[in-house]
């Protein structure tokens, strides 16, 4: 009987992974976590107790690191032999289609490992003629398919069967998109200029730099956390990790949580116990950020904390991934569903322990 009176009012599932570890631990996965989160669009560093960013972190933020946007780039250009030889194989190339929503459009990405990932709709998939996997998130009704093409394979050259097939498929379907691009040549620290000149002749390219923003807080209440304990204490001496995470979110969104307004409006206030701090600084960077940049910031903050450049008990580094990226961490598939959450926060303590919060939405595989 189709007419059921049961109404499902349960919210969509979500996952929050909280990990506690130490940077010195050999098994620590923080490096992998940072480096495998390929497509980031916002990075935010929050340091309480300082009016200014500590010097080395400031230096990393100020460093210019541009990214490019290429308009209406056909996918056939991505399997161009010159392009693969000169750029894909000679550095870390990050490319992500822009203004494509993963729940509505086809989304393409090039990972620094040389994989071209296409998250395409059923109709496109049937026309494309390349073998892929149905998406993890709607297995029953196969609506999305993920196709992977390894660009760095030795046999992936013109004339070979697989190459020709991919090329024909791209030509037939005439797939194209705006792409965000960032390229780091291996070894040398030169800019990604050559990539731009490669495309400049035939496509509209734009050079962009990240948007920086600094916010200063004064008289802010800080929740007290215990670096060795994630869970609630028996006598309420510190806040739980989850409470802290919510609070940091509130600060990032510019919510004043020092005092709660009347109950009719909101009952949220800074979790207890808390401590007043005179100043705090929040620096953010928005754009297309390569994981290397995030890693540099993390290293800088850690060295600053080691050198006692700032009197803060901890520092928090939050990295937001693209909601429409086809992958979250490494090659784990990512979808949008309700929110497309794809972000992580590192809470760095002075004693080189850290907490890692990985927030993923409904259409995500647990990292």
């Amino acid at each position, binding site marked *: 009987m189709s007419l059921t009176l049961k109404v499902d009012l349960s*919210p969509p599932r979500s996952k929050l*992974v909280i990990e506690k570890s130490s940077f010195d631990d050999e098994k620590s996965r923080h490096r992998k976590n940072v480096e495998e989160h390929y497509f980031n*669009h916002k990075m935010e560093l929050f340091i309480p107790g300082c009016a200014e960013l500590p010097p080395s972190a400031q230096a990393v933020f100020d460093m210019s690191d541009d990214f490019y946007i290429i308009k209406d780039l056909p996918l056939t250009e991505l399997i161009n032999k010159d392009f693969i030889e000169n750029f894909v194989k000679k550095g870390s190339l990050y490319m992500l289609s*822009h203004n494509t929503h993963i729940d509505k459009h086809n989304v393409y990405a090039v990972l620094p490992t040389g994989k071209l990932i296409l998250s395409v709709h059923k109709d496109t998939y049937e026309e494309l003629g390349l073998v892929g996997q149905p998406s993890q998130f709607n297995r029953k009704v196969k609506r999305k398919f993920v196709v992977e093409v390894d660009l760095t394979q030795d046999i992936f050259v013109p004339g070979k069967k697989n190459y020709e097939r991919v090329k024909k498929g791209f030509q037939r379907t005439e797939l194209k998109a705006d792409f965000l691009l960032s390229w780091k040549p291996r070894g040398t620290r030169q800019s990604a200029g050559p990539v731009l000149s490669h495309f400049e002749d035939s496509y509209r390219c734009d050079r*962009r730099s990240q948007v920086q923003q600094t916010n200063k807080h004064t008289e802010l209440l800080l929740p007290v956390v215990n670096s060795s304990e994630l*869970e609630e204490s028996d006598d309420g001496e510190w806040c739980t990790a989850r409470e802290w995470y919510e609070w940091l*979110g509130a600060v*990032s969104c510019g919510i004043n949580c020092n005092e709660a307004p009347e109950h009719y409006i909101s009952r949220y206030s800074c979790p207890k116990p808390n401590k007043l701090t005179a100043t705090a600084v929040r620096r953010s960077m928005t754009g297309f950020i390569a994981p290397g940049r995030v890693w540099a910031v993390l290293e800088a903050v850690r060295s600053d904390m080691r050198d006692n450049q700032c009197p803060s008990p901890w520092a928090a580094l939050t990295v937001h991934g693209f909601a429409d990226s086809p992958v979250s961490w490494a090659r784990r598939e990512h979808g949008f569903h309700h*929110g497309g959450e794809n*972000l992580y926060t590192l809470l760095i303590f002075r004693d080189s322990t850290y907490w890692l919060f990985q927030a993923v939405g409904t259409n995500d595989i647990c990292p």
Partner: protein
Amino acid sequence: MKRIVSKGDAPYYYLKVLLEFEDKTMAVDVLTFRTVIMKAMMSMYGEVGAAVQIDILKYEDKTISAILRVAGSNMVKLWGALTMLSYYDEKPCAFRVHQVSPFLMAFAASSRQLLLHTE
């Protein structure tokens, strides 16, 4: 090293909403805004629905937009009630739900609205 994985229902859900009146010049203060939400819940889910605790974490009266917090189990109810609202005080209006997330942090950035300046 310790790892906690919390799956399933999140304790709270957050919604980024915008209230739109046909009459663009309408000025709405935070108390009225709260009342609009309560009225919406009242008509859809009755007194039981109106009793649901909804926190307005942040409110901007220029754009009439807000960040709401609601218990996970009531999120679908709230979202539904906001969607069904069409009149307040006999003035046509509508809620636009921009973002929904179980993590408040997710509202700090929205990659879909990012880089619109490149257009």
